Structures are given as C-alpha cells and as structure tokens.
C-alpha cells in the first residue's frame, strides 16, 4: 500500500506539471515542472513521507532500465546512422568528454571562488 500511495502521488505531481506547462505555455516538459513542485512541497513539509520515499527509491534504483525502449529505437535509424556514422560517433564521444570535463572544471573553479566553505579537491 505504501508503494501504491507513493507512485500515485508521483503521478499526481506529474499530472500537475503537465497541466501547468500547458496552461503557462512553458517550454519545459511536464515531469520537470512536476519535480520542481514536489521539491517545493518537500521543502515546505520539511520531510519526506515514507510512501514517496519508497516509490522514489524503487523507480530511481533502476533508472537506466527506463531508457531501454528508446535505445532499441536505434533499429529504425540504422540507415541514417550508417550514412553519417563518422560525424555522429565523433560528436557523441568527443562532445561528451568535452562537456563533462568543462562542466567539472567550471564547477570546481566556481566552488573555490564562491562557496561559503572551502573544499578539498585534488
């Protein structure tokens, strides 16, 4: 029952998010607004209900499973991917390395400059 209540609440927040972005014409997807709404609720309540905690842990512990159906969609695009495989592969690999390294350096640098605490890194 705990899990069921939790998943129901998550769906209610997702629904609220979907309705919100439609009404406000926001360019963000409904679930992202739903997450923000749930986060604000948790801040106001100053705590996580056990049901929400249970449902969230269950969903997030196998987050990568949820990407499998989209990934299998690759079979529809075999031809497109084969025609432009070089730019796609290089952009994917190099782009991801560059993005990750840049983000890490900026976060590290900015944390040293602006944070209210000193961090030991590296």
């Amino acid at each position, binding site marked *: 029952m705990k899990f069921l209540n939790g*998943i129901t609440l*998550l769906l209610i927040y*997702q629904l609220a*998010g979907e309705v919100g972005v439609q009404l406000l014409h926001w*360019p963000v*997807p409904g*679930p*992202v607004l*739903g*997450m*923000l709404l*749930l986060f604000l609720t*948790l*801040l106001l309540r100053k705590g*996580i209900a056990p049901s929400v905690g249970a*449902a*969230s842990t269950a969903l*997030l512990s*196998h*987050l*990568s499973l*949820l990407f*499998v*159906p*989209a*990934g299998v*969609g690759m*079979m*529809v*695009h075999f031809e*497109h*991917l084969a025609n*432009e495989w070089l*730019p*796609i592969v290089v*952009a*994917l*690999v*190099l*782009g*991801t*390395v*560059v*993005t*990750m*390294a840049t*983000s*890490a350096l*900026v*976060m*590290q640098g*900015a*944390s040293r400059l*602006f*944070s209210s*605490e000193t*961090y*030991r*890194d*590296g």
Partner: protein
Amino acid sequence: MADADLATLWVYLSASPLLGLTITLIAYSLGHRLYLYANCNPLLNPVVTAIAVLIAFLQVTGVSYAAYFEGAQFVHFLLGPATVALAVPLYQQCAKIRKRLLPLAITMVVGVITGAGSSVGIAWMLGASLETQMSLAPKSVTTPVAMGISEHIGGLPSLTAVLVVATGIIGAVIGTTLFRLMRIKDEAVKGVAMGIASHGIGTARAFQVNKEMGAFSGLAMALSAFVSAVLLPWLLHMTGLL
C-alpha cells in the same frame, strides 16, 4: 499440427503488448546480472546489453519496432514519474546544494552551451546534415526533454532519443576514468559534470558510485533540462542555425 498451433500462438504473442514488455525486462535483467558478474565494469552497462539483445531478437523474429514499443511503452512511460521522483534525493542533499547555488548556476549555463555547441560544432565540421546536427544538439538532455527540443529545432525526435541514450552510456562508461585522470575528488563536482553531460544514465551510474554524487548528478540533470529547454532554441536562433 503442432507447427500451425505454434505459428498461431506466435502471431498472437507478437501482436500483444505482453511480449514487448516481458522481453524488455528479461533483457535488462540479463544485462544487470552480467554487469554484477563483471564487478560493475562500466563497459558492460546493462543498457547496452539489453539494447543489443533486444535488437538482435527483434531482427531475428522479424517483429517491428512499432509492435515492440506497444509493450515497451509501459517501461518508457515510467521516465515521467522517475523524473518527478528525482525531487526526493534533491531534497535529501538540500543543505549541500544550498551552499553551492552560485557555482551550480554558472556551471549549468556553461555546461549546457558546451554540450550543444560541441556536438553541433563537431558534427558540422565533419559534414553531417543539418537534420543530424539538430538531432545531436540536445543529446546531453534527458530523453523526454531532448525529444521536445529536437522537434522544436528541426531534428528527428526519435533519432534524438537514440543519441541521448548513446550519450548517457558513453558518459557512464568514461565518467569515473575521466574524473580520475583529472584528479577530481569532490563528489559534488563529479556528480554535476555527470548529470549535465549524460543525464539519467549517468545519474544511475553516479548513484552506484556514491550517494552524494548521485544526488548532485540528478540535480544537474534536472536543472540542465530546464536550462536547455529555455536556452537551446534561443541560442540556435541567435547563431543563425535556425
């Protein structure tokens, strides 16, 4: 006539959502078992194994992706509530996040621009079509958001979904090694970089490494989805690509 019975059964099963759903779960659990068996070697990411097994199965049996997705959509749908659920780890790390709001904000903007800019730039230099470039632009953003952005800027949403998953896997595979080479030890910094560059798959990997890294990765993924949805269409417009 056992053969005829089997053929009828197969026709029935391949048209039912049950098959797509069940094989998705079986393929993932095989992948997960292999991953644990290999001591969580990032090269054997369960998503890679599952996708490879499923595509091979569908090719051999001749089941179309559309028929498969009839069943797999139930798993795909859970991406929505899972995105909402990210509020929980976010809240748990709230105290740590509050101390680093400004660095986070700066990193989000730089990271999102770098993510889209590097992939579009590289693809353009190597002669990719405009459609491919636009499909690549939101590759670091979580699937539902990325598909929306792709559609908006003239990419192929379903191709973007594939590129997003590939990006997530690449990030999950190289992340820990990259951070070791860069001598980064701060879990928050690692998490943020992982979440910006490789969204939910990177976040799943980050949670396996460390809870703090996972929370920051989830936060970065959520924030970058927000920033990307607002910034990317505008940015591409400004640079004259759109």
